């Protein structure tokens, strides 16, 4: 007589028997049906299982808000290819992303500032109320500015107290426009229509009969006003009575029936309200923006079936029209995908091209001084002078172009790059501050110009110049040992490669693969 093992009892409780091969699961189930002892044990184990879950459940973290996925994508892109894939040039890409992020931030700030700066301006011009039209357009710009601001996802708490909802403000502007334009009905009508342009994106229809154009927006505005600011201004609804259910479409048509909708828009996940979301019917016949609490109230023609919710930074969502339409929007980093800034910094030549002094070896001086022969001394002096004088510009200028493209050049100088070996030493600084030292030995500088750099492939095929030590028989000539003789600081690596008939040695506090990748781009 066998009994079910303890572990299998837990597997049974955990619904894991399905993973058991063959008929094991079936045998265990059948046994449990018939064996009282095992059933009793099963009950015990179930209690243990519950208790353990209870213990673990006591230590759950509080609500943790994850960062937007886009941020993680960005991080993934930034650190991509840092070490694993030597062929990829990590540095320029990093630069590009950093720039993109900066630009986006700058834009975001700009929008934010622009919005909050424009809004009071609009209010001022509205209050001065010289002419109804000015007042209206001022208010309209304030409204649209506020919309911009909301779209940059300013937290509702900061956006809210600054001003009431767009609709509310539009309604007030309309009120003012009508009051000040009362002397001339045409102006009032036009003003009323303009407001609708700002909030509902209706085209201006100046040729419409005054009664239609003026009346219905006002009706609608009053309606919305009650919805968005129910506690303020009970007189808002006072006005000529109209057919309550008349509705004017964006194209100016008037349809008899309208449906009043309310709803709220929140962010998926955090469930925070989103302000400034464009809410419109799919055909564009009606629309509004959500207020600071993410709420909206809207009258739509009865024929409309779908509402579209649109906001920068969120995925557009469509929802069927019901009495109460509540929607969750998912975040989407439109801005980052939309704006791609690529930049390659031109090599910044902080060189000593004009003023650098070549290194003078004591031995050289001694050698020069020891010459009696005036002719020889002359020559030696000349060579000394050359080496002491500001470095020979043409060659060093060319030498500067040896630097890795797109990376800041700290210095270019002619110096002893290895014991007994002179060459061009280029120091460059990576974006993160890491300094790289490139030494070029026996490199034919006359080859180095923009044109020959382009055909790097051909240059690679070149045999090492005679100046270079005897190459090994293999395809890649062995690096002369004296170039590798210098001791490296802790954590530094060195890569030496044949280059333009000579050698390039790159040193820096980076893994060899990184160094190789950097030089590879140059060759």
């Amino acid at each position, binding site marked *: 007589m066998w009994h079910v093992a303890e572990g299998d009892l*837990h597997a049974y409780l955990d619904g*894991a028997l399905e993973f058991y091969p063959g008929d094991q699961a079936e045998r265990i189930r059948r046994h449990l049906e018939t064996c009282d002892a095992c059933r009793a044990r099963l009950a015990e184990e179930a209690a243990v299982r519950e208790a353990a879950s209870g213990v*673990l459940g006591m230590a759950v973290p509080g609500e943790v808000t994850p960062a937007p996925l886009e941020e993680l994508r960005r991080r993934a892109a930034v650190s991509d290819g840092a070490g694993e894939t030597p062929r990829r040039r990590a540095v320029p890409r990093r630069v590009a992303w950093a720039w993109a992020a900066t630009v986006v931030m700058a834009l975001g700030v700009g929008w934010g500032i622009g919005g909050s700066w424009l809004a009071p301006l609009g209010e001022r011009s509205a209050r001065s109320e010289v002419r109804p039209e000015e007042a209206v357009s001022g208010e309209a710009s304030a409204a649209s500015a506020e919309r911009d601001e909301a779209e940059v996802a300013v937290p509702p708490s900061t956006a809210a107290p600054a001003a009431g909802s767009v609709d509310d403000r539009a309604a007030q502007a309309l009120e003012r426009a009508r009051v000040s334009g009362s002397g001339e009905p045409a102006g009032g009508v036009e003003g009323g229509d303009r407001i609708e342009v700002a909030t509902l994106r209706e085209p201006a229809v100046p040729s419409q009969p005054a009664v239609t154009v003026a009346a219905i927006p006002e009706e609608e505005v009053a309606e919305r006003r009650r919805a968005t600011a129910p506690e303020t201004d009970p007189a808002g609804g006072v006005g000529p009575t109209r057919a309550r259910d008349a509705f004017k479409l964006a194209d100016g048509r008037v349809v008899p029936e309208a449906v009043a909708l309310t709803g709220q828009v929140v962010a998926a996940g955090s469930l925070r309200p989103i302000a400034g979301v464009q809410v419109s019917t799919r055909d564009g016949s009606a629309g509004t923006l959500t207020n600071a609490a993410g709420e909206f109230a809207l009258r739509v023609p009865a024929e409309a079936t779908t509402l579209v919710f649109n906001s920068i930074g969120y995925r557009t969502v469509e929802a069927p029209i019901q009495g109460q339409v509540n929607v969750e929007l998912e975040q989407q980093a439109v801005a980052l995908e939309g704006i791609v800034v690529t930049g390659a910094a031109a090599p910044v030549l902080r060189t000593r091209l004009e003023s650098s002094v070549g290194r003078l070896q004591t031995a050289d001086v001694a050698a020069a001084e020891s010459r009696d022969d005036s002719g020889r001394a002359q020559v030696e002096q000349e060579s000394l002078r050359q080496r002491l004088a500001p470095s020979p510009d043409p060659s060093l200028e060319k030498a500067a172009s040896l630097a890795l493209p797109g990376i800041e050049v700290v210095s270019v100088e002619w110096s002893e790059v290895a014991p007994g070996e002179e060459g061009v030493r280029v120091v460059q600084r990576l974006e993160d501050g890491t300094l790289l030292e490139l030494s070029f030995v026996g490199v034919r500088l006359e080859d180095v110009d923009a044109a020959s750099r382009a055909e790097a492939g051909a240059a690679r095929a070149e045999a090492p110049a005679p100046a270079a030590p005897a190459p090994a028989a293999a395809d890649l000539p062995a690096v002369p040992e004296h170039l590798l003789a210098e001791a490296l600081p802790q954590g530094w690596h060195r890569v030496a490669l044949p280059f333009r008939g000579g050698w390039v040695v790159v040193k820096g506090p980076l893994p060899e693969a990184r160094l190789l990748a950097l030089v590879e781009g140059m060759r």
Partner: protein
Amino acid sequence: MSLDWTQLYRTIFPDLVRFLHRKVWDAERARDLAQECFVRALREEPERPRAWLFAVAANLARDEARTVIRRKQHLTLLKNEAADAVAEGDAADELSERERWERVRRALDALAERDREVLLLWDAGMNYKEIAGETGLALGAVGTTLARARKRLVHAYEAEERAHVARG
């Protein structure tokens, strides 16, 4: 193959945080590590993201534990300060929650490494097959391990409670 990372992020992230939290005992840190897991996953695009994410999480938590041991003295000091600060306020609930966490933590520490791992993976929503793949256990051994881990956890926690009652 392109995965719906938005969906994966939404469904797996909480589990991952829960899993990591039982290892690092710091909600913020657990969140950071969970995000780091996703950053790596986005880069690697693994074929079985869930198992992959938990494997990375386990590794990160292990690395974390090593550094934490070094910093433990310091952390303990900081934590005590924080606890004192809380005690001074009237947040009695907060304190008891902290105490409860601490007890669960000690109970979990009483488990063998493998038992704890399996239990936490189960608790984070992985099934037996995934746990087996993750830990290298045979499928049939997962239940046995879980049974043992659960018993020990419950006993250890009860012992902690008794100690607490005895103390105070």
